[in-house]
């Protein structure tokens, strides 16, 4: 079969990169292209090097941005770069190279929520729907024409990692649906009509700076905690809460449970200042375990 590309490069980490690489590898024989995997950020428990070794895929670990840029600029053959779970921002010189086409998986429904940690912001902004977007990479962040999108519903108690998993699954399914077509001809895509003043989220930004107050509406506290919850992947520093005496403590963990401690009160703290219970509704309360690091502001 004919393809427009002699070479396909997958850049990224995590499940998205792994599954996209598997799909690209499945078509390698049929379309006869070279396949390269570049690991720029190495996720905890990453097994990409082993996978590449087993499947005889060329593997390159390029954690230095400038070395990675030089490597891409040195590619002179028709190349498709697939960015999935990737935090390297492609420089203009790479994007504008004639022989290179770049597509990226973004974890929100563009043009909404461009930039980093889109899953967090979708939850924090109380969106009811988010999703996966595949788009062409252009010099402006997440602004290229949209190739495909798939919605994912945001459910009531969803945490960031749970939404992230569903969006990743949607992205993988979407990629399978257009990849063969993309190999053969350029997909025009839908131009994004984004407001020029649209907010782009950067990696240093955290909702509410990661600090909630006991005086906030309980559902907002719960939503903030869920929006920052990536399990053991420390995407953000641990959230903190300002207590009624003005002191602040780090939140160790939290969960929603049937009401037991807040039957007649909005919130209650145990005698050791270790557990905080906040009424969420008629039926539920939020149980928060605090670290022993209370400081007065």
């Amino acid at each position, binding site marked *: 079969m004919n393809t427009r590309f002699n070479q396909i490069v997958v850049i990224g980490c995590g499940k998205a990169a792994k599954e996209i690489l598997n799909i690209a590898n499945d078509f390698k024989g049929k379309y006869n292209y070279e396949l390269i995997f570049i690991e720029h950020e190495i996720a905890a428990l990453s*097994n990409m090097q082993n996978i590449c070794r087993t499947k005889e895929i060329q593997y390159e670990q390029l954690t230095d941005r400038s070395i990675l840029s030089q490597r891409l600029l040195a590619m002179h053959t028709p190349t498709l770069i697939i960015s999935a779970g990737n935090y390297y921002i492609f420089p203009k010189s790479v994007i504008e190279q004639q022989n290179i086409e770049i597509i990226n998986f973004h974890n929100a429904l563009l043009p909404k929520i461009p930039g980093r940690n889109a899953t967090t912001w979708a939850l924090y902004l109380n969106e009811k729907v988010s999703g996966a977007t595949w788009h062409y990479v252009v010099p402006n962040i997440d602004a290229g024409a949209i190739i495909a999108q798939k919605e994912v519903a945001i459910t009531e108690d969803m945490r960031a*990692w749970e939404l*992230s998993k569903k969006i990743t699954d949607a992205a993988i399914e979407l990629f399978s649906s257009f990849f063969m077509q993309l190999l053969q001809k350029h997909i025009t895509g839908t131009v994004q009509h984004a407001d020029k003043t649209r907010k782009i989220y950067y990696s240093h930004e955290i909702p509410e700076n990661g600090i909630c107050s006991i005086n906030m509406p309980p559902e907002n506290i719960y939503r903030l905690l869920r929006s920052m919850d990536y399990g*053991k992947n420390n995407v953000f520093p641990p959230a903190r809460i300002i207590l009624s005496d003005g002191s602040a403590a780090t939140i160790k963990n939290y969960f929603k449970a049937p009401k037991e401690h807040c039957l007649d009160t909005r919130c209650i703290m145990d005698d050791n200042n270790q557990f905080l219970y906040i009424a969420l509704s008629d039926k539920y309360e939020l149980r928060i375990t605090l670290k022993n690091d209370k400081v007065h502001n």
Partner: protein
Amino acid sequence: MEEKIIKMLQEINEDIIDYQGENMLADDLIDSFGIIQIIANLEDAFDIEIDAADVTTENFGNKNKIFGFIKSLITE
């Protein structure tokens, strides 16, 4: 304890129970989200806190490694 953990692992992938290898992530029986899910469930079920630094193949490579690791946390 082991029964509870087996149930959690079965929810993710039944094949994990019979897996005899050393690294179920490398062998594609579980993905990174599955590991997050297991940890969240273990913390809730056994009222423990698992340190991010302990999320290694030595502690999460197969079901027996998880049994041993959780046992060590509970008896600490």
